[in-house]
């Protein structure tokens, strides 16, 4: 990527001119120089953008583990390789991490020396004016009847008004420099980029997130054990989570009922809750909706999902209640066709498991299988199949949303066909073979709440704002140098710009030159301003 060659070591141990040898230190220094060169930074930036793309094409575990599993099942030949190479977790893969870590090592290696140079530049005086200002990017000349000192004073005044730092190295010249803030802004920008990364790292290490599904009327006390899932950062002490108690009084959900493209689209989700900062503390009413989290002890509580919890009762043949719970069924599509599982370990002689669907607005015929026509609970129905046997084979831990049927058999009717439960609220189904009954009592909504803390976020936010400010300074301010030289008007100097000096008064030729590092449409205006002010003074005299 770069044309630089390794440096030759200062002292050569072998007098072989064709094979310069590098000491270990020399190689390290060479590698460091490569890594911190602008070209490497450029290359790494491009590489980073390319490397980020696969994560938007392949499903990612951190977003939707279910889709990753589907993808792997559908592409059995390629996906093991993709998986091994990290394509389903691009942003935590070694290659992606390597690129951004190298970029940031390069960044730091770049900022430090540039800061030193810049601090020195801030203290330095503007350089001596070159001999021939007409060679500079912008140039103007004017003859005036001011004295040399007066002319320089006028130029000084104009340039000071334009915030130039000025210095006269001798009595016939003036040097001015401006735009130091450009490099300052640029350094702030690059430094703030590292700040963003530091903030992300802090969030990763000290942040945590817990998810909970809470049915209407239910309450939960925050602690490491009460969340459905909790993912703490490596340095989080899960004993010190904020001990708040949150009750879900009501979940208000509205869907678009007007026919057309937007039919069934969500319009409104609001959870009305009762919050206590700690057990026994006074309760306050708080509402959480999308875009409006509530904050407790540095933790934000977000409403991220919702669905239905049918209340289902399972009784044995004698009418004893074996199971009665509001069981969350997880929505699978926009019309909230939801899947769920009911596990009844206390059933005898064999454990019972029910698995199937909840349909908020059931399509009555089931022609294409169980389907829901609308996300609101207009015509709720559950459709479940029944299994019996061992619910927990091998006592392996399992999800509450899946039924492991390895050691179970589907319950059938007398004619041998599988028994299928279809119930509307209030209805009861008798399981064949005198195994008891299943009742669909009612349906409640649940809220999917996520509690998160990210102590690094403020660091990243402040850094991001600084980065933007630095960027604006670094890009819009121009580094400019303007020089002015004066000399007495000699023969032939007349007619350069203004034909004065004829009346016998001493005339001065003022030469103005401007220099800019980059494309700079404003430089000409500054040179012109000095020129015009001098010309103007001339007219008045």
């Amino acid at each position: 990527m770069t044309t630089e060659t390794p440096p030759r070591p200062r002292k050569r141990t072998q007098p072989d001119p064709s094979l310069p040898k590098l000491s270990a230190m020399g190689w390290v220094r060479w590698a460091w120089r490569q890594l911190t060169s602008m070209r490497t930074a450029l290359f790494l930036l491009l590489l980073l953008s390319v490397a980020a793309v696969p994560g938007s094409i392949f499903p990612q575990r951190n977003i939707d583990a279910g889709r990753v599993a589907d993808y792997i099942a559908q592409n059995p030949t390629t996906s093991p390789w993709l998986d091994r190479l990290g394509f389903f977790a691009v942003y935590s893969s070694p290659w992606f991490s390597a690129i951004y870590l190298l970029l940031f090592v390069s960044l730091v290696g770049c900022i430090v020396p540039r800061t030193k140079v810049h601090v020195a530049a801030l203290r330095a005086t503007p350089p001596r004016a070159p001999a021939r200002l007409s060679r500079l990017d912008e140039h103007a000349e004017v003859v005036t009847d001011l004295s040399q000192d007066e002319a320089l004073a006028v130029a000084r005044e104009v340039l000071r008004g334009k915030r130039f730092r000025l210095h006269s190295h001798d009595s016939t010249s003036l040097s001015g420099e401006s735009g130091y803030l450009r490099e300052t802004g640029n350094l702030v920008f690059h430094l703030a980029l590292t700040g963003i990364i530091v903030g992300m790292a802090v969030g990763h290490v000290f942040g945590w997130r817990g998810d909970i599904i809470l049915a209407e009327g239910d309450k939960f006390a925050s602690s490491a054990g009460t969340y459905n899932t909790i993912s703490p950062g490596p340095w989080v002490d899960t004993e010190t989570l904020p001990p708040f108690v949150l009750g879900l009084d009501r979940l208000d959900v509205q869907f678009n009922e007007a026919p057309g493209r937007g039919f069934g689209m969500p319009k409104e989700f609001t959870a009305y809750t009762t919050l206590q900062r700690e057990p026994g503390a006074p309760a306050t009413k708080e509402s959480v909706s999308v875009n409006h989290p509530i904050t407790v002890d540095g933790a934000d509580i977000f409403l991220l999902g919702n669905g239905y919890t049918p209340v289902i009762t399972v009784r044995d043949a004698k009418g004893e209640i074996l199971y009665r719970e509001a069981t969350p069924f997880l929505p699978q599509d926009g019309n909230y066709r939801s899947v769920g599982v009911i596990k009844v370990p206390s059933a005898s002689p064999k454990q019972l498991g029910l698995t199937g669907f909840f349909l908020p607005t059931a399509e009555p015929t089931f022609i294409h299988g169980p389907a829901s026509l609308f996300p609101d609970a207009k015509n709720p129905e559950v459709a479940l199949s029944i299994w019996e046997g061992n619910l927990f084979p091998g006592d392996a831990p399992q999800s509450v949303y899946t039924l492991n049927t390895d050691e179970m058999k589907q319950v059938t009717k007398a004619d041998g066909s599988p028994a299928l439960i279809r119930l509307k609220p209030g209805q009861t189904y008798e399981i064949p073979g005198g195994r008891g009954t299943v009742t669909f009592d009612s349906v409640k909504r649940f809220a999917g709440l996520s509690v998160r803390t990210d102590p690094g976020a403020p660091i990243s936010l402040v850094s991001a704002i600084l980065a933007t400010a630095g960027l604006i300074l670094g890009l819009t301010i121009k580094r400019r140098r303007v020089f002015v030289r004066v000399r007495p008007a000699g023969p032939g100097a007349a007619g350069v710009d203004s034909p004065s000096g004829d009346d016998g008064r001493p005339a001065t030729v003022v030469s103005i030159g401007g220099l800019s590092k980059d494309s700079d449409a404003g430089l000409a205006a500054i040179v012109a301003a000095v020129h015009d002010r001098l010309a103007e003074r001339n007219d008045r005299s």
Partner: protein
Amino acid sequence: MNLASNANAALYASMIVYTLAMLAFTWHLAARAPQVADSKVAERAEVREDVLVGAGAPGTPERRSPYAAAPGFEESRESRQRGNIALMLTYLGTALLVASVLMRGLAVSRPPWGNMFEFATAGAAAVGVAYSVLAKRNNWQWLGVFVVGPILLVQGLALTVLYTEAGELMPALKSYWLAIHVSVAFIAVAFFTIAFAIGIVYLVRLHREEKPPAKPNFMESLPSSAALERTAYTLNMVAFILWTFTLIAGAIWAKQAWGAYWQWDPKEVWTFVIWTVYAAYMHSRATAGVDHRKSMLIALVGFVCVIINFTLVNLVSTFVGMHNYSGVG
């Protein structure tokens, strides 16, 4: 009064006016071409020399401003008049388009960018406004074809492929961050688009400067490649700053709506990719020894990413993450 249907009527009207503007811009370019041919014959040698010496070489006796048109080209009155007619039509077309977007916004009582159709029309309006504001003072009549053409294309696609009835927003979009984040993104895209158009013209112009064609045409009447390059850089720079802001505002909004400011959802990924590609462009332009043509190619790739971000990422299901608002399908 039905605002939504008036909005559509204004959209159709703006397409008609833009089509006329497009024709007028072509007519304007046609007026520039023969003139170049005339002036070129006499000035060929001088032009060649100017190119060989290069804009920045020291010691050039008389440096011409890089912002002037090509040497030896003095725009004729006819060409200027045609250019101005085209500009007037563009202003009218833009006004109609903006009116359409505003009426749509009033019809739905929210910022009018909640689905792909609205993205496309509001994006086209942003490009139209940016061009209309900048064209006159920069003498960008020659650029009109390359800006109004894409606007028309986007409007056509919006009405045929992406059309969505005026409707309400999904809850995740109900936030004032929608107004901030998305509107800044639109302005950024408007600048990226114009910079892209100039970037393409720059590459062609540069090629023709290096290998002067036998028959000069309107291209030779445009500002020098160096000037075009600088203009594109300035526009890209403004757009990059706005895009940086878009990225940050998006992260703040994501934090509110989804609980985490950055989750690498496909839309976030592409916003980031665009940002890094343009950052690479800014970098390469500042790196000694990388020529401006190569830098410009990076910027063009960046614009392709902008297009992908607004099309494929919204529409193709492999990309669909949490930003699933297209309203299409």
